[in-house]
């Protein structure tokens, strides 16, 4: 056998219709993980404004830290991004619990159901939180 044919990655994302629950859970967990670690770095960057706060200005809430956060929160886009962040975090937490159960060898035969449950629960929590996130003063 001098030759053989390599088809490369046959099971690439083009076959997404054939993916099963466990595969979707993995894809979502990885995606939300990337978002969260990206947010962690951004979050610390934004909060770094706390280093340059002028104590006098802080007394009247006119310091750079308070202003930066208030400025961001006044943007509707940021509010929607926060809802997205909540969705991402809640799913990562719930599916994370599912994965810890899998690691402990608990309920592996219903791993697909627990994935659907974490999806549904994420949806419910996010929908219920929308008023809290979009409400409040949008200056």
């Amino acid at each position, binding site marked *: 056998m001098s030759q053989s044919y390599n088809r490369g990655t046959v099971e690439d994302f083009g076959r997404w219709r054939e993916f099963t629950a466990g595969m979707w859970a993995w894809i979502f967990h*990885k995606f939300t*993980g*990337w978002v*969260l*670690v990206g947010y*962690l*770095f951004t979050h*610390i960057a934004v*909060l*770094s404004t*706390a*280093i340059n*706060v002028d104590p006098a200005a*802080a*007394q009247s*809430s006119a*310091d750079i*830290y*308070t202003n930066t*956060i*208030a400025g961001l*929160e*006044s943007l509707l886009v940021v509010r929607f991004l*926060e809802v997205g962040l*909540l969705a991402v*975090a809640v799913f990562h*937490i719930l599916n*994370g*619990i599912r*994965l*810890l159960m899998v*690691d402990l060898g608990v309920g592996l035969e219903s791993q697909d159901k627990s994935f659907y449950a974490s999806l549904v629960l994420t949806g419910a929590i996010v929908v219920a*939180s929308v008023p*809290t*996130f979009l409400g*409040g*003063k*949008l200056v």
Partner: protein
Amino acid sequence: MAEHYSSFERGGRRWLFQRLTAVFLIGVLAFHFVLLHFVNHAADITFLGTQARMSQVGYFATMWLFLVTATFHGVNGVYNALVNQGLTGSQKNAVKYLLVVAGLLLVVQGTRVALAMTNLV
């Protein structure tokens, strides 16, 4: 294959720490979200409010641990994801050191921020 088995310490310990930090993060991330979006609205955050919270030793310690564990969990997760994509050799090493440096920088900067938020400095 059979010639170069690496020791347990690399894969296994990181695997275990990824899970242990996960357990901690589940609680703290949920707490963090509830406290800063539901109890206190994100839009109403002021420096004085932040300072009042961060000056409590227990809260400060929790947040700092949150920073460290989240950084480890995130950076280690990114590394695992890249290794699973088939990253090998010198590329893998380069990514490893890049991620370690990025993680350390984040922890250092995060610690500076956390200290600036207290009334200690």
